C-alpha cells in the first residue's frame, strides 16, 4: 500500500489577490496528461490552469519535480441561450488531453454545451530584422530602406500561449457530462444526459449520434446517461453508465446507432437494503476503464466497484467508501448531497483505486492487499513534506482520540475530483478551490 508522505500544496487561487474562496475558483475537473508531465485543472469560472512538472535537477536529486503553473487561460465564457431564456454555465465539466504528437500540447475542455480543442504551445524565439517594419512594429518609411535583410530568430523569454483550435458546438440539447478521446486519436465522443455524439477532431460542423436514449415521450423518461468512456485499446468499444446503476458496453462496428448494447453490467439489488433511496445511491457517477482495458471501475454514492469485462452479472470487487452514511441518506437527500457526483481513478498499474468523500477525505483501496486508507486534504493537517496521517471515521459508541464522528463531518467539503499520475505515485486532489498534490517519499 502506498503511503503518500511527501506533500506539497498548490493553492490554485493564487491568481487572485485575495484568498477568499469565490465560487468561480471551485475546481471542477483535474486531469494529468498521458506522460504525467502536465496537470490541468478546470474551474467553475471557465478557466483552465495547466501545471508543469519541473525537470528533476541534478543538483538536488532528492527533490522530485514539483508542479508549477505553466499556463492559464479562459476556456469558456458564460453564455445565454436566448431561445430558452437560460444561462449556460461556463463551468468546465471535463478536460481530456490528447496524446502528444509534436512540441505543442492539445487538450479538450468542455462546459455544459460546447467542447473546445486548445493548443498550448511555447514560444521562446522571435523573429527580428523585418524590412518593412521596425522592432516596435511601426511601419518603416519605404524611402529609408536601402538594403534588404533576412529576419533572424532570436531567443526571448519563454511565453506559453493557449489558442483555441476547434470549437465543437450546437450538438447537445442536454448537459455534457463526459468527453473521451478514442485510441485512434482521430475521434472523440461527447456525452450528455440522453445522447452520445462522435466527433472527428478535425471537423467541427458535424458529429454523429451514436447513442440516443431519449424516449419519444419524455414522460417515460426514467433513466439518464451519467458517464461514458472509450476503451483504452479497442477503438470500436466504449461504455456508458446510467442513473439506474447499469453499465452498457457497445461496439461501434455493430451498428451506426449503438442503442443496443453488446454487454450489460448490473448487479442485482440487495433486497435487505432496499429503501426509497436505493435507486439514487445506485446511480453511477463515474466510470473508468483500467489502463489494461480488462477491468471497469464504477463509482456510485456509497461504493466503488470493479467489474471484469467478461462478467456481466456482478462486480468483481466492491469497496465501501463511506458506508456510515447509509443511515443518513434521508438527511443527505434533503440537503442534496446525495446527488453529489464523485469521480474515481486507477493508479498506473491498476492495483490501487482512489476516490473522494466528505470532510475533505479521500480514500484509497489496494486491490491486492485489500487494505484501504482514508486521508485528508486540508491545510491544517498537511504541511509541505509532512506525512499524511490516516484518518478514521467513528460510527458510533466510543470515539477514539483521533477519530471523527459521523455527525461532525463537514458535508460542504467534498472531494469530487482526483487524478493519479499515469506512471508514478503522484496524486492530485481538488478540495473545493484548493488543489493538493501528494507524492511518494523519495528514498
Amino acid at each position: 500500500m502506498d503511503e503518500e508522505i511527501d506533500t506539497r500544496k498548490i493553492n490554485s487561487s493564487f491568481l487572485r489577490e485575495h484568498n477568499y474562496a469565490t465560487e468561480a475558483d471551485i475546481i471542477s475537473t483535474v486531469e494529468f496528461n498521458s506522460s504525467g508531465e502536465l496537470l490541468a485543472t478546470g474551474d467553475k469560472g471557465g478557466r483552465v490552469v495547466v501545471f508543469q512538472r519541473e525537470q528533476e535537477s541534478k543538483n538536488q536529486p532528492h527533490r522530485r519535480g514539483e508542479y508549477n503553473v505553466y499556463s492559464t487561460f479562459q476556456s469558456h465564457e458564460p453564455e445565454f441561450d436566448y431561445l430558452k431564456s437560460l444561462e449556460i454555465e461556463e463551468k468546465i465539466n471535463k478536460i481530456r488531453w490528447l496524446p502528444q504528437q509534436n512540441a505543442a500540447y492539445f487538450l479538450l475542455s468542455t462546459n455544459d454545451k460546447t467542447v473546445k480543442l486548445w493548443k498550448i504551445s511555447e514560444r521562446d524565439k522571435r523573429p527580428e530584422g523585418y524590412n518593412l517594419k521596425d522592432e516596435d512594429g511601426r511601419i518603416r518609411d519605404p524611402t529609408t530602406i536601402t538594403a534588404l535583410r533576412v529576419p533572424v530568430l532570436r531567443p526571448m523569454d519563454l511565453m506559453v500561449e493557449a489558442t483555441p483550435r476547434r470549437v465543437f458546438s450546437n450538438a447537445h440539447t442536454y448537459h455534457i457530462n463526459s468527453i473521451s478521446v478514442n485510441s485512434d486519436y482521430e475521434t472523440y465522443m461527447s456525452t450528455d444526459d440522453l445522447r452520445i455524439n462522435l466527433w472527428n477532431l478535425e471537423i467541427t460542423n458535424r458529429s454523429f449520434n451514436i447513442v440516443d436514449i431519449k424516449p419519444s415521450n419524455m414522460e417515460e423518461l426514467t433513466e439518464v446517461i451519467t458517464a461514458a468512456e472509450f476503451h483504452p485499446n479497442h477503438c470500436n468499444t466504449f461504455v456508458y453508465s446510467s442513473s439506474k446503476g447499469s453499465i452498457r458496453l457497445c461496439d461501434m462496428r455493430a451498428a451506426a446507432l449503438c442503442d443496443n448494447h453488446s454487454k450489460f453490467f448490473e448487479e442485482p439489488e440487495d433486497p435487505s437494503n432496499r429503501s426509497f433511496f436505493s435507486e439514487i445511491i445506485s446511480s453511477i457517477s463515474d466510470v473508468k476503464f483500467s489502463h489494461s482495458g480488462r477491468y471497469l471501475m464504477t463509482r456510485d454514492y456509497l461504493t466503488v466497484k470493479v467489474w471484469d469485462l467478461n462478467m456481466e452479472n456482478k462486480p468483481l470487487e466492491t469497496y465501501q467508501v463511506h458506508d456510515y452514511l447509509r443511515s443518513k441518506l434521508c438527511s443527505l437527500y434533503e440537503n442534496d448531497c446525495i446527488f453529489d457526483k464523485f469521480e474515481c481513478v486507477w493508479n498506473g498499474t491498476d492495483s490501487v483505486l482512489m476516490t473522494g468523500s466528505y470532510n475533505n477525505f479521500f480514500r484509497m483501496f489496494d486491490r491486492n492487499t485489500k487494505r484501504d486508507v482514508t486521508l485528508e486534504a486540508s491545510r491544517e493537517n498537511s504541511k509541505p513534506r509532512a506525512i499524511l496521517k490516516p484518518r478514521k471515521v467513528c460510527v458510533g459508541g466510543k470515539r477514539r482520540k483521533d477519530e471523527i464522528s459521523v455527525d461532525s463531518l463537514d458535508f460542504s467539503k467534498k472531494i469530487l475530483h482526483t487524478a493519479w499520475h499515469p506512471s508514478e505515485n503522484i496524486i492530485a486532489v481538488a478540495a473545493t478551490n484548493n488543489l493538493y498534490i501528494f507524492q511518494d517519499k523519495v528514498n
Partner: protein
Amino acid sequence: MSACTLVSVSTVLGCHSCSRIDMFSKGTKRKFSDDGDEMLDESLAGAQVSSSYSLQRQSLLDMSLIKLQLCHMLVEPNLCRSVLIANTVRQIQEEMTHDGSWQVVTEAFCGGSQSPSERLVATEVLCRSREQDAEPKLFSVLSYEGCREEEVVADETLCSVSVSDTASNVCLSESARHCWERDELVDADRDDETCESSRLGPGDDEDDDDEDDDDEDEEVDIDEESPRDNPKTMGQVFGTFEIKNGTPGPDSALEELFSDVDASYYDLDTMLTGIQSAPKMGPYDLLDSLAPSHGPPSIGSPSSCRSDLNELDHIMEIIVGS
C-alpha cells in the same frame, strides 16, 4: 422495508452550504420536524409504528415534490437529479397505492360531477375532518405578513387545489392540513386563479400568476392522474404538458381554469429547460437592479451568483407581494 428516520432531519450533520437548496432545506426541516414531532406525539397515543412510517413517507414525498418544483429556476435544471427525484416520487406513490393510503385519501373527494368550487369545499371539509390531526401552524392563505419562507414554498407546492374528480390530490390531501388554514379559506367558491391572485397580493405581475399557475398546473397534473398512470404523471415533470392532448376526465375543468394561461408555456421539455413566457418580469431584471450591491465582481461570479440570487428574489418577491 427500511425507513429512514426523518425525525433526525433537524440535524443536518454540519452541512452549511448546499447553497441553492439550503434555505429551503432549513425551512423544510423546521416544518417537517415540527410536523413530525407533533404527529409522533399524537400517533404514540395510537401506538402505531406504521403511521410514523407513513408520515415519514409523506414527508419524503412532499420534500421530493418541492425539490422538483424548485428545479426550474434560472439555469437549466440538472436532468439526472430531476429524474432521480421523480423516480422516488413515483416509487412512493406506487407504494401508497398498494398500501391503500392512496385510496383512503381519495375517498374524501366526491364523485366526478363537482365544479371546482365544490371541490374546494371538499378540500376544506377534508381539512376540517382532520382537524384533530392538523398542526396549529397553518398557513395564512390570504395574507403574507409574517409568513415564513418555508410556508410560502410549501404553499406553492401544496396549494394545488383539487380540480379533479377521481383519484387525485394525494399530495394535497394529506398535506392539506399543512397548507390551508381552515378559517382563511374564506371564499370556497372562488376558483383557483382568483385564489392565486389574492394570495400574491394586489398589483402582482400577471406573469407571476402565470408562473405560479403553471407550477400549480404541474402539481395538479401530478396529483390528478390515477395511480395507474404514474409514468404519465411523472411525465409532467419532464415537460410536454399533455393537458391539451386530452387526458380523460377532468381536463375540461382544468382547461377552463387555465384557459388564459399563456399557451406558449406548454413547450417540450418545459420543465427541464424552464422556458419562461416572454412578458414575465425576468429574473434578470431583478438581478440587474440588485447587481451593484453584490460584492466584488469576479470572473464567472455574476452567473454563478445569479441562480442563487434569483431563487432568493423569487421567494422574496412572493413574500413581499411586489
